């Protein structure tokens, strides 16, 4: 992909689709709200379902800014503990990121066997190897998944419908790039760093 070098340099502060001069103007208007409510039966959640604070992320496994935000979210989760419910939804930018859909399908195939977060974390921690699907397969084996089923579901795009539903719902909620976060249901237009995310979810830190 053209521009990859730029991405690598700017990954600390950037965001895939959002323009950089955002900080100043974001306060002047009402940020969009999440239109698809958190649904525990469907969503991938971490943290207590009745937590006072919620953070929803729309993400793309190949997006370098999501890769950078991954560690930031972990910090927020560690700090807030049981006060926070974190939700991850798919928003693969397939025109730009050729492995994003496959990676999302990989995570969903693991989710079908109860190991979503393990695979989600693995994919973000091994973003540079997404092109090699044997890596995720190896990890699926290590997790004790039924790898035949896992591989078949990916090959047959069993979970693509769900991923596309996530995408459509995200678009309706005003997702304008990846990662996009919703702090307590309101789009977070600030930086995808722990400090800003803390502030957005209202923890006062």
């Amino acid at each position, binding site marked *: 992909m053209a521009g990859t070098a730029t991405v690598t340099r700017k990954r600390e502060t950037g965001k895939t689709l959002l*323009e*950089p001069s955002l900080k100043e103007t974001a306060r002047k208007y009402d940020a969009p709200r999440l239109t698809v*409510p958190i649904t525990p039966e469907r969503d991938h959640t971490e943290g207590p379902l009745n937590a006072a604070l919620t953070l929803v992320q729309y993400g793309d496994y190949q997006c370098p*800014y999501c890769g950078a935000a991954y560690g930031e979210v972990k910090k927020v989760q560690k700090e807030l503990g049981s006060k926070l419910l974190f939700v991850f939804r798919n928003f693969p930018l397939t025109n730009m990121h050729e492995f994003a859909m496959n990676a999302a399908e990989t995570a969903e195939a693991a989710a079908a066997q109860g190991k979503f977060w393990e695979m989600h974390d693995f994919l973000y921690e091994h973003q540079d190897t997404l092109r090699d699907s044997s890596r995720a397969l190896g990890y699926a084996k290590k997790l004790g998944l039924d790898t035949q089923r896992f591989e078949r579901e990916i090959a047959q795009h069993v979970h693509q419908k769900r991923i596309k539903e996530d995408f459509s719902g995200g678009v309706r909620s005003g997702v304008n790039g990846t990662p996009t976060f919703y702090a307590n249901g309101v789009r977070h237009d600030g930086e995808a760093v722990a400090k800003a995310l803390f502030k957005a979810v209202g923890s006062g830190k």
Partner: protein
Amino acid sequence: MVQMNKKRRRGSELGSRGVGKSNRRTRLKTGKLVKAERSVLEPGKKAPNFSLNSTPDQKVSLNDFRGQPVILAFYPADWSPVCTDQLSLYAEVMPEFKKFNAELIAISVDNIWSHLAFAKDRKLNFPVLADFEPKGMTSRKYGAYNEKVGECARALFVVDGQGIIRWSHLSPDGVNPGADGILAALENLNTGQAASKS
């Protein structure tokens, strides 16, 4: 969590989202809206026709699309310093726009050679027009030209099949407006048409 399912404001109210300094308007006692600084054309107005180059030897006119909804996306510049931009998002969302039989046209003041390279690089699947000479003439007609910097403002319009603007939106500088407002406007367009038929 209970807060999460609050519905987004829809329809014409969406137009008020993103009203920033550059979009200040004054309502006279007669109810007429007058422009303060930059102010984009309001819903109900006829969309000014244009004929602009999409390639060095091809022009695209708004009137070519009569009978179907058209999304006009004015944007400041082709090459943004980040990985990608608003238009790349629209390329991804194109299947959703197509559900409404809508066409998307992007317009900036960059020249056609820049547009061609940009569209190829970002895999854009819609016409990108050059409002290049006379510079910004079309954008000005829509109130979507930023005189100060000599670029288009980040303005969106949804034009119906009869060529009437049904929704417009000016983003604060630097805020990528996403596609939610466009989709809500297209939905309203369909609802309106269904209602008028019955």
